[in-house]
């Protein structure tokens, strides 16, 4: 119910494939020879201490950063060659606010949806806001919401923008214990419907399915 795939899009088995990825920051190697695969219906957690390059990795995989060597494949083809198709399937939520504080949750999400070519879908936005527990706050300016609520507005994008790959940078930041359990449930729902999730977190995931953990920060010690 949470995955609204666009009609005609058939998910290939191989989702994201990372081959011999290398990145450094100011002559300090973040990771080298990094390989992993994320298929449809899977969740991969990127783990590692602060400064080990988790956010850098996610930004590379989202196509925001070009500071890497190696290959990133999406459905068997290089990311660089099919950026448009890839972005249609990708939903990236970074650790930034992702919302304009002076606008209301509804206005923020309307704009986010319009960027993805989704217009006049207030129903979906309202139900997404309800799902993240913000009904009643739709028209209130975001700066009057708490940090956790603001984070939830940002996460509500998961439910009003169709995608088959979620890339989430620390989605549990500022979220309370009950909210964390909820988000874990959403993730497992999405995965069981064939979605793929890549996330970083310091939190111990309790997740219904099996999931892979890719640990960064070991390459740097070599």
């Amino acid at each position: 119910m949470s995955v609204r795939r666009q009609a005609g899009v058939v998910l290939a088995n191989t989702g994201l494939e990372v081959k011999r990825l290398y990145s450094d920051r100011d002559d300090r190697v973040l990771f080298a020879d990094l390989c992993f695969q994320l298929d449809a219906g899977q969740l991969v957690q990127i783990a590692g201490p602060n400064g080990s390059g988790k956010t850098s990795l996610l930004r590379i995989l989202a196509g925001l950063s070009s500071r890497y060597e190696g290959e990133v494949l999406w459905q068997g083809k290089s990311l660089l060659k099919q950026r448009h198709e890839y972005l249609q399937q990708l939903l990236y939520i970074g650790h930034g606010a992702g919302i304009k504080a002076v606008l209301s949750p509804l206005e923020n999400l309307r704009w986010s949806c319009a960027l993805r070519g989704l217009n006049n879908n207030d129903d979906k936005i309202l139900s997404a806001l309800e799902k993240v527990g913000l009904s009643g706050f739709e028209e209130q300016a975001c700066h009057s919401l708490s940090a956790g609520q603001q984070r939830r507005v940002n996460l509500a994008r998961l439910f009003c923008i169709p995608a088959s790959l979620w890339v989430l940078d620390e989605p549990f930041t500022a979220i309370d214990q009950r909210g964390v359990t909820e988000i874990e449930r959403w993730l497992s729902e999405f995965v069981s419907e064939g979605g793929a999730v890549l996330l970083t977190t310091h939190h111990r995931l309790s997740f219904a399915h099996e999931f892979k953990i890719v640990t960064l920060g070991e390459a740097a010690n070599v």
Partner: protein
Amino acid sequence: MSDSGLAKLVVAVLRRDVMASLRRGSEWSNPLVFFVMVCALFPLGIGPQPDRLAELAPGILWVVALLASLLATDSLFRGDFDDATLEQMLLSHQPLYPQVLAKTLAHWLMTGLPLSILSPVLGVLLQLPAKGMLALMVSLLLGTTVLSFIGAIGAALTVGLRKGGLLLSLIVLPLYIPVLIFGSSAVKSAVEGGEYFPQLAMLGVFYLVALALSPLAICGALRISVDQ
């Protein structure tokens, strides 16, 4: 991508930026206040003689309008960069060009447009003859748009830097020169009773060139600034 889809995208971005700017208030009012204050400083600096002021008015008004527009430019992408909504624009599968175009136009609506509308009042303060008012307004309407587009390139280049403000002026001011030359010259010609349409036509050419080309540079610059 259908044309109506693009139009909707432009409208959505435009509406969101105008709304955000109106709510915050300072974003559109500060450049105006700056414009008024600096124009008021000139008679204090060079003396109150009406004929002297009248002679200098076209140049003063244009230079101060240019500076006001420049000061406002730094905030064009900075807010979106800080709250990471810029990432959403870059990661949309829809083209960046119309989004950037809409953002820059929204910025002009909130800065250049009120500036141009207010300019006759300041013209009166600086003893600008009535003959020059129309030329002043029209030249500012066209010229400040060009300034917004050129400034947006600089803003996009410096948005990832912590101290972008002063640097932005350094890299953008030389590029403003043609607009300043033709804008102030239009007003001057009008005051002297001459023909000022050629200057406005030139500004119109700059307008079209800036409209077509600068979003390309802005898009590239934004990608570079986010990719650090």
